[in-house]
């Protein structure tokens, strides 16, 4: 199992050929209170970098991009009733969707935890 990060502040946790995707603690802090999450339909095929979900805070809507290509195999339906999970547990209960990865080599282009931490620090 490995966790990788994008510079759009998404994380992907890979188990076998399935990646679970959410946003980082830094991202949820920047967004503030999350009040709505639009998750993708199961079966949708998405390309790396494609806008797949939307997270709405009180102030603004933000797109969530697929960190890697694949097919949506599960979406977190619980977020419809408890969008605050994204704030409370961004890397736990607040996950957005799961993808069956179509090209695992795409993971190589993402940051590991140390690189992501350094990236966040560089943002000040």
């Amino acid at each position: 199992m490995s966790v990788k990060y994008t510079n759009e502040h998404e994380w992907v946790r890979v188990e076998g050929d399935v990646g679970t995707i959410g946003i980082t603690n830094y991202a949820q802090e920047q967004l503030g209170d999350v009040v709505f999450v639009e998750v993708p339909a199961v079966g949708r095929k998405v390309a790396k970098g494609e806008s797949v979900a939307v997270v709405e805070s009180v102030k603004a809507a933000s797109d969530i991009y697929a960190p890697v290509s694949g097919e949506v195999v599960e979406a977190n339906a619980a977020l419809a009733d408890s969008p605050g999970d994204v704030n409370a547990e961004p890397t736990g209960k607040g996950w957005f969707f799961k993808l069956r990865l179509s090209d695992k080599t795409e993971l190589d282009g993402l940051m590991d935890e140390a690189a992501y931490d350094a990236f966040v620090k560089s943002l000040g």
Partner: protein
Amino acid sequence: MTETAAGPLKRTPLHALHRELGARLVPFAGYEMPVQYPTGILAEHAQTRAAAGLFDVSHMGQVRLTARPGRSAAKALEALVPGDIAGLQPGQQRYTQFTNETGGILDDLMVTSTGDHLLLVLNAACKDADLAHLQKHLSSACEVEPMFSRGLLALQGPQAAQALARLAPPVATMKFMTGAYVVIDGIECYVTRSGYTGGDGFEISTPADAADTIARKLLAQPEVKPIGLGARDSLRLEAGLCLYGHDIDTTTTPIEAGLLWSIGKERRAQGGFPGATVIQKQIAEGAPRRRVGLLPDGKAIAREGAEIAIAGKVVGKVTSGGFAPTLGRAVAMGYVERARSANGTKVELVVRGKPVPAEIAAMPFVKHAYYRG
């Protein structure tokens, strides 16, 4: 230092306090302002609806108009606004708008008569233009005195009165839309029972060097917590109140905006303010479009700029939209053609390219709770 193209951001007298309280500061109308404190917008919104919240609105513009000998400041101001200013009794406050020659709104403002002068509160982004407008048109009749460095605190919520009355007992019996000079902690302030959250509350104008002290005294009351501009926006949206530059601007008239109530009967008849002929015509015949409330089905949020459509045909645009924490749902307001503006009309709001079913609904979304004695 944070800088913009227009130069360094200005700071209010409460800047150090915001920092101390852990506010997230953002550029707003040329000022560095708190958008939220660590508890977050939802908690701050709930705090203001349930107890009391303290907002720093010192970025807004305060102006004093004092009549020159033999002149009337109220009569002079009526040449620029459609509100009944001459009819204000000492201590009375009124909401009105600066209009332009086509009936559009240059800014909306609060006017209070103290008996011997008028006190105006203007939007931060408009205050320099408003001041120039006032000086150009009123200087022969009045002394136009900007007081832009003064502090302005808004204490809002059902427990605002008990909290403020502990420091200044006379405020307990003040009624909505009245004002008075009140001594708070030994400092003379001008207090009005008003605000922009739809609830009970006060706005407190303080000398610049006393704002911090008074804010800390208020925050020391058990009912009061600091609230940022994020919650101020969600509170005013729930209350169905217009935000200048969004729901009203130079292209919207007070009639289109649903602000006819703010124009006195005599002034409707007599005119004598910029754009009067346009506004009087709209009063008589109806405006081509109207500001309406919108309740989308489901949870998607239609924000400013989203198109309003009926059966695929665009009939208007959302001017403010967001999550209403008190209701736990999305709400919006916008303009539609008058023929399509009846409550209950089914429309679609186009959110990220997708039509979301919605209904035109009465405002306010959350009932006003002003203190009328």
